[in-house]
């Protein structure tokens, strides 16, 4: 079933480009010793293990690259290696319907959804738990402002969809498994990488001048395997990317001195709205994840997070409900804005919001463990080098504020595979920097804008200062009442527009 065993695909016959290439299914270094032996034999007898693309890190973004390559006519002939020590890639991911949702979830934007549909992975997502939401409410603890977004504002059906990471992962896995592309999974870690083997003699056949792999990057894996690839993509080897370090990419970034607590909670009613409230120490977000479950992402200082983690379940739930209701400050006034402190702002504008402020459904039960992780911002100064392209978290780590992280990663994955296709169309070497720069030129500015926005949000909300609170609230209200602005914010958050506000 879900076994992505490195099969020697019948597809090996499809477009074998050079006669001396011999493909080895050594990847099937499965637990079975017989197979391991077989693989060993294969490795010894094969001349090389040569791939067009090596994807280091078979996480969501890495798998998306593979699926996307498999889905395009110009790239589906590529021979792909996926290097990841996660046994799930070989053994498959089992998802039981009756299990409560995993706290690790992603909010996928409509743009990501349509990309998933394009590569044929969305149908697998739909077989599992997923929750569309069409409403979003953002407010802050000062009680001065709030905004409600509705998918109808942008004539859309949904604002996004919350999916467990393991569902995304397994959907992409099923997708690549059924795809007609040559792929091999190496259940190992990358230990070293040589991007320019031409400069050193390869011990494999002695003289460097006759080595057939001089135009390839050479990768050594923890199980002793050595493979060669024209293009190494660092997908989900994550924010501590091994390949990024090995190939000397520099990063810019900082830690936020904030932690996020994530967990799954249960309500008594179904939730179909995404909620976010800015509290003095950071935002708390409640995302619907299907049935009566919601996912909580609560950002706070490290001290607070360890305190909250050690609370009893009932006390923790009390704190969550407190934070989503009257905790830290009053409810914002409902939209009419006829009285009180905001009339100076709201008077001239007719309300396009229409919907009043709502309190999120109460949390009644904790449905998963509480997980804590530190937040940081990190951005690679460059995404590409000869034979290497960084994608996803290896290239950028963002504040999880709007759940945009993985969407940026998926954006990278699809942009990169499209650029590879464009390169193949005109016969480019897919490891050439001049080609890969096009990927960088497309993704880097887009990612920087999004990171700056999220970072800005984080900064603005990490200061509790009277006048600033009012300005912030005014901005909120502006967003709520001024529909072009609102439309732009929604479109941008849906991943559909390049630049916010300027269209």
């Amino acid at each position: 079933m879900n076994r992505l065993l490195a099969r020697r695909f019948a597809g090996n016959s499809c477009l074998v480009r050079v006669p001396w290439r011999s493909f080895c299914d050594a990847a099937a270094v499965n637990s079975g010793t017989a197979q391991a032996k077989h693989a060993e034999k294969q490795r010894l007898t094969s001349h090389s293990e040569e791939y067009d693309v090596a994807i280091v890190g078979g996480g969501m973004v890495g798998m998306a690259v593979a699926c996307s390559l498999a889905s395009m006519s110009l790239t589906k002939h590529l021979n792909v290696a996926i290097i990841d020590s996660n046994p799930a890639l070989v053994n498959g991911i089992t998802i039981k319907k009756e299990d409560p949702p995993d706290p690790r979830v992603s909010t996928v934007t409509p743009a990501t959804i349509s990309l998933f549909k394009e590569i044929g992975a969305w149908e697998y997502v739909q077989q599992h738990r997923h929750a569309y939401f069409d409403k979003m409410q953002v407010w802050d603890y000062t009680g001065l402002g709030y905004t409600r977004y509705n998918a109808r504002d942008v004539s859309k059906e949904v604002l996004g969809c919350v999916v467990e990471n393991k569902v995304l992962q397994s959907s992409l896995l099923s997708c690549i498994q059924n795809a007609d592309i040559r792929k091999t999974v190496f259940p190992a870690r990358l230990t070293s990488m040589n991007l320019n083997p031409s400069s050193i003699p390869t011990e494999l056949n002695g003289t460097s001048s006759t080595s057939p792999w001089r135009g390839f990057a050479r990768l050594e894996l923890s199980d002793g395997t050595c493979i060669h690839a024209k293009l190494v993509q660092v997908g989900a080897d994550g924010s501590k990317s091994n390949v990024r370090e090995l190939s000397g990419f520099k990063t810019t970034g900082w830690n936020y001195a904030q932690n996020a607590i994530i967990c799954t909670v249960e309500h008594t009613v179904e939730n179909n709205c995404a909620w976010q409230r800015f509290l003095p120490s950071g935002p708390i977000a409640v995302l619907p994840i299907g049935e009566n479950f919601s996912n909580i992402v609560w950002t706070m200082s490290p001290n607070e997070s360890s305190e909250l983690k050690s609370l009893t379940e009932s006390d923790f739930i009390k704190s969550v409900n407190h934070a989503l209701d009257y905790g830290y400050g009053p409810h914002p006034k409902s939209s009419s804005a006829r009285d009180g402190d905001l009339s100076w702002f709201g008077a001239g504008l007719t309300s396009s919001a229409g919907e009043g402020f709502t309190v999120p459904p109460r949390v009644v039960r904790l449905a998963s463990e509480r997980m804590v992780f530190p937040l940081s911002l990190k951005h690679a100064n460059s995404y590409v080098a000869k034979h290497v392209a960084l994608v996803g978290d290896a290239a950028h780590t963002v504040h999880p504020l709007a759940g945009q992280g993985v969407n940026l990663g998926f954006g990278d994955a699809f942009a990169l595979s499209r650029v590879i296709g464009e390169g193949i169309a005109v016969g480019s070497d897919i490891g050439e920097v001049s080609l890969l720069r096009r990927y960088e030129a497309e993704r880097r500015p887009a990612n920087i804008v999004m990171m700056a926005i999220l970072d800005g949000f984080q900064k603005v909300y990490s200061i509790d200062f009277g006048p600033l609170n009012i300005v912030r609230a005014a901005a909120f209200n502006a967003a709520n009442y001024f529909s072009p602005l609102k439309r732009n914010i929604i479109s941008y958050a849906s991943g559909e527009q390049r630049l916010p506000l300027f269209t």
Partner: protein
Amino acid sequence: MASKLLRRVLIVSDRSPRPSSRSLPGFTSSRLFSSSNSQPLPATASSPPPPPTTVDPPSSSSASKFGSKIRNDSVRSSIKDPELAKFSAIADTWWDSEGPFKPLHLMNPTRLAFIRSTLCRHFRKDTNSARPLEGLKIIDVGCGGGILSEPLARMGAVVTGIDAVDKNIKIARVHADLDPGTSNIEYSCTTAEKLVEEQRKFDAVIALEVIEHVANPAEFCKSLSALTTPGGATVISTINRSMRAYATAIVAAEYILHWLPKGTHQWSSFLTPEELALILKRASVSVKEMAGFVYNPLTGRWSLSDDISVNFIAFGTKDGQ
């Protein structure tokens, strides 16, 4: 204004980056290199000026496709083993997409897009295929370091690359061997005329940025035509003899910015699209499509356009079946 000038200059610089050596011995014979066999050679070519005593270091000649192409002082003897490492280093420079050839690397996909689409249409090939030129025999005349030959080979063609300069051929050979997808390219230091004598035939004959440097463009076109199988294709790109080309390719690039040695291009030896079409017609090649190349300095990308006033490319088919 400045940006316009920049754009022009970039157009030019792409074609022939300045070699680091300003003096180009034997330059006057440059227009002859491809037609030397079919033409009685003028004195300068038949008895070339004595080779410079200090031969340019390899890196400097490699720094210029044009510069090396025109130097007929290239060594004819087969290369010795210690030299191989040297040529390998040269190949790195030639192929350094951030190096002196950056503009050429930037323009290459655009030229290839034109070639791909015209050849696919003409030979009825599947444009969705990763190797649409599978089964076609193509010759790249004036291949330099192989910047055009390699992509053509990756697109499935059986490619022969020829260049009059031995050094270029060595560089191209070393680089093509880096990738199994291009290692089957046949490189040879020869001229189109010699291959005509050998009665070689190709489905498509491609000569990019060469014709403005040959002595007799009409004879050169005849040779290209003779190499083309009847019903095959001929693709030529060059610079237009327009005032704009004069201002950009010669005045700006050679005299103002010194990107090219003075005298690199002679305006009078440029061909207008009409003239090119005419001499091709006389060589029984009918021009079917023509396009210009335009550089966008903001995106750094080249694109195809209808503006053929500076750089242009022509696709023609050989008459007769």
